[in-house]
């Protein structure tokens, strides 16, 4: 910058103010104020920031930085009764696993999607009881889950309330090697429900939008998707363990982000609340995705929605790595994507059938 461009004491030489040119109509107070400011500026040369200009700095000094803050859980001084209860229900091993999960947050109290380590801890303490004593979950095949990389878990869906998702998440924390928090992609309708939308977000569940899924995969998270969607939940008892047609989005995202698809078979969810009938007209009237009639609902009111104490079995299958077999252009080919989707669906169906047959054999 040449010194010609730089002004003297009164700033850049840009001529007179077009709004203060003397036409006799402007309030003379403005001019008086300008003059008084000039006088003050001339009388106070010490205020000239020459030294500041000669030695530019990126931002003004904020003073000494405050010490690095501890992580969220340590910072929380007011552990409530729920936190203390969670402390009683969780073992030191569980706490250690939770600490490993929280490390990914970098000390933040919440992640981009609203996950709160504190509320996740409380929820885990409660759902661990369901996992161990109500559903008595048995799981296998954890070795296929990547330790640090992202992956899509594609699972069959069933049961009225999403306990299948909950049990997979708890399984990921309690039985994962290492423990990993599975981020379930939930239906957009769940995002509209008061209280439910907040709870889901605080325990790490995410509403299914493309941006959300892409961000999760970019952050190398485990993303649990139910490709059947609502069709899996509202299918009748006669169709239980028969997988409904899959949506294609999860295969597209797998190809786009080059992450494996891990097929997950859940046995038990379809027995927890068998749907006898879906009253669609009533569902439309109430703005619900479906209105189920089960042996206990609506007979027993909201209590009728509670799941029966069925045994759960979760199995993780060998991952599909379509991105190794297909070129990136396959993403644009709907036939290819549908073919890949069908392969995943068949694999999950086989895994489910095998376990259902084993169960029946055991009963006999």
């Amino acid at each position: 910058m040449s010194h010609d461009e730089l002004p003297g004491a009164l700033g850049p030489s840009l001529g007179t103010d077009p709004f203060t040119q003397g036409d006799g109509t402007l309030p003379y107070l403005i001019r008086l104020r300008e003059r008084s400011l000039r006088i003050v500026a001339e009388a106070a040369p010490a205020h000239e920031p020459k030294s500041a200009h000669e030695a530019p700095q990126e931002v003004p000094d904020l003073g000494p930085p405050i010490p690095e803050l501890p992580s969220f859980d340590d910072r929380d001084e007011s552990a409530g009764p729920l936190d203390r209860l969670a402390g009683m229900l969780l073992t030191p091993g569980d706490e250690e696993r939770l600490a490993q999960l929280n490390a990914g947050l970098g000390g933040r109290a919440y992640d981009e999607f609203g996950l709160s380590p504190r509320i996740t801890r409380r929820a885990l303490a409660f759902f661990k009881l369901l996992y161990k004593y109500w559903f008595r979950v048995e799981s296998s095949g954890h070795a296929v889950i990547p330790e640090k990389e992202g992956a899509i878990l594609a699972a069959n869906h069933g049961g009225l309330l999403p306990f299948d998702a909950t049990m997979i998440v708890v399984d990921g924390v309690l039985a994962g090697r290492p423990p990993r928090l599975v981020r379930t992609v939930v239906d957009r309708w769940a995002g509209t429900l008061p209280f439910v939308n907040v709870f889901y977000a605080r325990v790490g569940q995410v509403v299914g939008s493309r941006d959300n899924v892409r961000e999760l995969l970019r952050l190398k998270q485990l993303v649990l998707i139910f490709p059947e969607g609502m069709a899996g939940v509202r299918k009748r008892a006669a169709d239980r363990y028969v997988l409904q047609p899959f949506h294609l989005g999860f295969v597209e995202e797998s190809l786009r982000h080059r992450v494996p698809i891990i097929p997950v078979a859940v046995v038990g969810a379809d027995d927890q609340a068998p749907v006898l009938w879906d009253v669609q007209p009533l569902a439309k009237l109430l703005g619900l995705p479906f209105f189920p009639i089960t042996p206990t609902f609506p007979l027993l009111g909201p209590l009728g929605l509670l799941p029966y104490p069925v045994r759960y079995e979760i199995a993780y299958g060998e991952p599909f790595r379509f991105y190794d077999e297909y070129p990136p252009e396959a993403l644009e080919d709907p036939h290819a994507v549908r073919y890949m989707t069908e392969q995943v669906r068949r694999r999950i169906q086989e895994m489910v059938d095998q376990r259902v047959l084993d169960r029946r054999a055991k009963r006999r």
Partner: protein
Amino acid sequence: MRRVLVTHVESPVGRRVVKALFHDPDVALALGLGTEPEPSYLAPYRGKIAYQRIDLAKARHLQSFLHSERFARARPDSVIHLPFAEERARERVPGGVHSLVSETRRLVEECAAKGGIERFVYLSSVFVYEPEPGNGNVVSEGQLLGFDGAGDSLVRAWIDADLVCQGELHGSTLLMTILRSATIVTEGGGFLNSPPLAHAEPAVGYDPMLAVVSERDVARAIVLALHADRPGIYNIAGREVFPRSQLGAGERRVAGFALPAPLGGALGLVEQLLGRGSTQGAAFERYGIVPSSRLAHEALGFEPQYRIEVRGTGAARRIDTVRCR
């Protein structure tokens, strides 16, 4: 060396931008515009910054200014337009927020028509996006805008002004950069650009996540956009996100009444008949918008340098801006 015209320099963000431009060796001169008498904070920066009082909402003011000797001598080649960075834009701006839209339109048109101006950086807000159901939704720049006729007047004005600037995105005369900022946290712990926090009564059962960004980081992003040859739309956000309840201090938590769309719709009809307000409120009061600033990182090199810390709750709540190490 850039010669920059900055509008609304009296706003908190305008102040930060002026300071950043003063310390920027690649900026030769900045001419700040504002509707109020010259702010006192400009006094130490007169070496490089000049001030012009002008009401951009008035067409004749803008015309007079653009044809003045002052403008000719300044020869600005870039414009930074910050129309909505006021703390209480609704009350403070004469003529309301809609005058800010007409001012933006007029300024963009004049800059495109008048030779010499090459770059135009406009500060918008992420609340122009259509909120989707969910407590915390990551949104990229491709997200649809929320054309909600019944929405907040400030948000509608944001969308209109954003669209005006988008009209020049593919033009040949201006390099237009639109920065959509998350809730801006000022040095004193105040908030700018945040309609959810402007409403006193939160919706029961909803606690949307709000992304925050320090005003210093916003100013930095503006300066980066000024120098980068990458016109386009970029989200600007810091690393932290907080639920609305944690940022809104001293509020009544059990107030308002929000219901799912179908039930709320029926109840809303009853309330309408009774002459009362809607039970549902605007979508941004229920659903969170968390902008992804990945594109700004890749194209502009933007990386938040300040962390927002929230401590305590209610009246004892304190919000600090802490420089990242």
